[in-house]
């Protein structure tokens, strides 16, 4: 790690592009670009709470509101999303909500 990136806490570029493939016990799989989702939601420090809810959804609560994430979220692997307000989002993952939620949570620690 170079001096400047250490100083400013920047990650190495190749690490930000990682794609996590979440294995499902069943044949189906879901690919979520977790890093992209988190950056769309204002970075990991902006995420106040994240949980699976209503069987098919990952519910994310943010500390400060973000603008509508519509255009880019569709490219992250989720089936769809619902903006409840600027601070609460439901990310729809069908039968893979638990797996997707775990994958996002793993990125937060």
């Amino acid at each position: 790690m170079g001096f400047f990136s250490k100083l400013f806490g920047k990650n190495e570029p190749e690490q930000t592009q990682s794609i996590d493939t979440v294995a499902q016990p069943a044949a189906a799989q879901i690919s979520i670009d977790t890093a992209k989702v988190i950056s769309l939601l204002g970075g990991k420090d902006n995420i106040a709470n994240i949980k699976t809810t209503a069987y098919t959804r990952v519910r994310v609560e943010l500390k400060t509101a973000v603008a509508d994430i519509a255009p880019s979220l569709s490219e992250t692997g989720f089936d769809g999303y619902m903006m409840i307000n600027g601070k609460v989002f439901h990310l729809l993952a069908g039968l893979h909500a638990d797996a997707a939620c775990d994958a996002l949570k793993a990125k937060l620690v």
Partner: protein
Amino acid sequence: MKILAPLDGIVFPITDVPDPVFGQKMLGDGIAVDPVNSVLSAPFSGEVTQLHASHHALTLRHSNGMELLMHIGLDTVMLKGEGFKPLIKEGDKVSAGQKLIEFDADYIAQNAISLLTMMVITSQHEELVIKPESGTVKAAKSTILNISFKGDDQVDEPEVDNQQPAAGITVSEEITIPNPVGLHARPAAMLASVARSYSSTVTLSLSGKSSKATSITGLLGLNTKLGSVVTVTAQGEDAEKALAAVLEAINSGLGENVSSVATKVEAPIEEAPLIGQHNTDPMVLIGVKAAGGLAIGEVFKVDNSRPDIPEQGQGDSLEVDSLNKALASARTELETLKSDLTAKGHDSQVEIFEAHRGLLSDPEVTDKTMELIVRGKSAAFSWHSSIAEQVVALRGLDNPLLAGRAIDLEDVGNRVLKHLLEISDQDRQLPESCILVTCDITPSDIITLDLSRVVGVATREGGSTSHAAIIARSMDLPYIVGLGEQLERLNSGDRVILDANKARMRLQPSDELIADIHSQQEQANVKKAADLSVADQPATTIDGHNVEVVANIGNAKDARDAIELGGEGVGLLRSEFLYMDRATEPSEDEQTEVYSEIVKVLGPDRPIIIRTLDVGGDKPLQYLPLPEEENPFLGERGIRVGINRPSMLRRQIRAILKASKHGRVRIMLPMIACLNEFRAVKKLVLEEQKDLGIESIELGIMIEVPAAALMARQFAKEVDFFSVGTNDLTQYTLAMDRGHPKMASRADAMNPAVLNLIGLTAEAAHAEGKWVGVCGGLASDTDAVAILLGLGVDELSVSVPSIPEVKAKVRELNLKDCQTLAQNALTLDGAEDVRELVKNRGEK
């Protein structure tokens, strides 16, 4: 046929829905959507044949007979309607794309198993083929299902019972539904599958409706609830077996856990609360006070039943003629009533009957009446049904104020009806000193009562804030409402005591009790006259302590009356009167003029405290839109409104400052909780004082919020005075609504907790050389006067009529004794104990 998506979202195969009722197609085949918007719209044009009581599901019927159940979320029936807002009613015809139900997606997501919304075809069709779409859909734009079945495109009325009566026997039995929310989709589906395995026809019926046990939508349509008693009938070869199986299935809960509720299905009985007054005395009826007072008399029951109204008319022109005559007579009557009232100075009542006159020409009513007359009905029938329709509509509104006006409309309706049917009021001969007992009473009826005969009124229904109640109060007529079924225990001719102050009625009182009350009334009258004769003398205790007794007023007339009765000033001018019942805010000049007029009535020496506007979400003003709050008493109320909208407050402060040139004006701020609120307003007042060149004005606060009492030491350094609003202080200290029927008797300001806060306030005020008054209801309660003086209260601001009585009370007291009494009161356990202490002391 193509069925449109009812939501924006992601299509989800029905077989993936994690609930066997849907996943195993127990209700029928269909499709699910995981929504990303929050309003369900109609997937085709049709009729809403069923809307579930919990508003989470509905059934839509196409003109071709197909029925589609739409069910938002899983297990959402348990939310009991929370999070759902239906935009349609059962029976509505809707068009494709029309919005049906709004829902709170985040609430449902977090409180139910899922938000998946199922669409299931519940009607039976031959050769039904369903082709679901997949992927993302847009509500009312994308197709979500392609359906074809035999008989589509034909108008096919839903199954009509034209089968031959089945052979075999008929058996039936009653059963109580044990499911917590009745037979909703899941248990209905289970029941249907049980019933299908028998050849007999099984029918469930409840209050006139019946359904085959095999029809899920029919079962849903029965609207069963926990505890509903349903009759199950089976007819056919295996009727006995089928009945037994269905009964057993219902008893077992149809897949729901009902063991916990199975035992508590009997009708709810009214329980005796652990504390408070529960009526155990069969000789006492308890109602709600509408107008205070005490009366002894004979029950006179009036049956509100309507006279016979002929339905058929005798030709348009004749009927229209008699309607016009009746309307004209009613108008004349109301005019006479109004001019009588104006002459007596009852302005507020004049307004009520002015409004009645307006209702006579209300197009909603007259158009409808004419329409019916043209169709051959009699004028009386047409008028009566038009009024009745409006009354029902008003009562159904979710607005208590408008619902309360239903009785006004009914009143006008009856007035005209009497003319149409040529009934005169004269045939109702009332006995002497009677207590009128009836279902409900209209303002017209109450105002025309012969007070030489009627001494009190008691009604089954009615409200304590109705127009009739307002009129009864101004007539000094004891009146209680809300007796309900207890009314059945009263018969014409029964002798009763009506104690409207305590909202009760005692049946068959003994002669001693009556004699006792008569002598009490007499004594009270003598005392009242005596108090009045010395009303203009100061209120000084035996040991020479002077207490200022001032008045709570709402306008200039009150100010004049207060001085007449010995008021030494005004402790509270409620400025709301200037702001209420108008379309725009009163201008600064208008306010200045009105305040100045009142200040001039008091003259240069008598003090007057003007309280700034005290409104809130519970009593909004037309031109001051306050958002509807979940909890208006903890919301934007009192000074908080002014703090959030300073320009309106500034105009009022300027008007008060200008009026202060005419006398001794003080300003008081309502609902202060924190010091920074006071400081912010004080800064505003100082700015305007400087602008208007006014040297000084006293600025005080009301103590209504417990926080302000607890912080009185800090406040006392900065305010000029305190005035305790005991009504709100009690409500906020005890967290009990004074208007709550079950709480009102316990929300007593004599509670030591409240008295302690008053004591703290007084102590803090005196430590800084400031004074403290009480302007709430407790100040007018003569039983409380001694304790208030003992706690250190310097000024009592009371209702205008009670000024002489309170002054007289002060003159009986000795401040030293009051202080001992107050200290004792603070150590007691409850309001009853404090009242008991005061009472015993009086008897010594």
